[in-house]
């Protein structure tokens, strides 16, 4: 084993403890060992600080252009569904409110609220509208949360 190999193993801590001590002493006393050790550390530092290679300046743009087709259709459908359900929610509640008001008796409390029985279809509308609102509000793209 030559000096450089020994120094490499010494720096990596791969020698036995006895050998480690021996090499440490040699580094302190022997010029050849000292030089090999300093060289080894200098190269290690240079390698650690050597910069990475860079792709072309258009790389990020081109990559994102490829990513858009993956994400856009689903995203558009999702946003359309969210907005559609939110608008539907507003229309349904507005519709239920105004159609049930008895103007002749000046009773502005919608009758559907006081009714004991709400039709199944209204339950479905309300459920869908609620899902739409919750979905729209909790989606991270809107940054509400």
């Amino acid at each position, binding site marked *: 084993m030559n000096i450089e190999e020994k120094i490499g193993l010494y720096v*990596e801590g791969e020698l036995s403890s006895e050998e480690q001590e021996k090499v440490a002493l040699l580094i302190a006393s022997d010029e050849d060992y000292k030089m090999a050790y300093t060289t080894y550390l*200098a*190269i290690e530092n240079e390698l650690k600080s050597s*910069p990475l290679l*860079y*792709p*072309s300046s258009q790389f990020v743009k081109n990559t994102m252009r490829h990513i858009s087709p993956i994400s856009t259709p689903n995203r558009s459908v999702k946003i359309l569904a969210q907005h559609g359900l939110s608008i539907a929610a507003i229309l349904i509640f507005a519709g239920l409110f105004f159609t049930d008001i008895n103007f002749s008796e000046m009773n502005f409390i919608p009758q559907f609220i006081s009714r004991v029985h709400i039709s199944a279809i209204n339950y479905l509308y309300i459920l869908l509208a609620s899902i739409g609102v919750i979905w729209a509000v909790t989606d991270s793209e809107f940054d509400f949360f």
Partner: protein
Amino acid sequence: MNSSEQNLWIAQTKNGNNKAFEKLVIAFSPLVFTMIYRRLNHRENAEEVAQDVFLRAYKYIESYKGESKFSTWLCTIANNTATTFLQKRKIDMVELSPESYERAGVNQHATLEKEEQTVSIESAIASLGNEDAQLITLYYQAEQSIREIAAILNIEENNVKVKLYRARKKLHEQLVKNKTIQYEY
């Protein structure tokens, strides 16, 4: 980029935020590109494969659970994608000359002196051969541990240690021989 920033971008990407993913691409493209370039020795192909790596990462980002470093996860995808690319194309891997590394997009912001030294180190790495060059990149530039490199390359840790030891030995010899680094004693 700190790790909390990185985790935020990953979480936002999982929620479909493309801008956050773009930040990840900007941050990690040099690492992914360098790793693939070392393997393929061809700039255009390396860019193509690197793009594919990021497309896959975007597609499967839900599967990243944070159990490993994000860079380790990306390097694993990069290694697998490069392997698939080489298998498909059956490219004759041509060893790079130092001149071709000079053309290979070393960071333009580096100072001239630093750039010269970088080119010398790149030449020394190029002289190692693809497999060793990739190991050196993962160890020094991607700052991956032996265990992480073993996971990325899907080989035993001991095997990584042996290969890395040999690659570093060759690299040290090459750098000392080329006298690329001036030492002060």
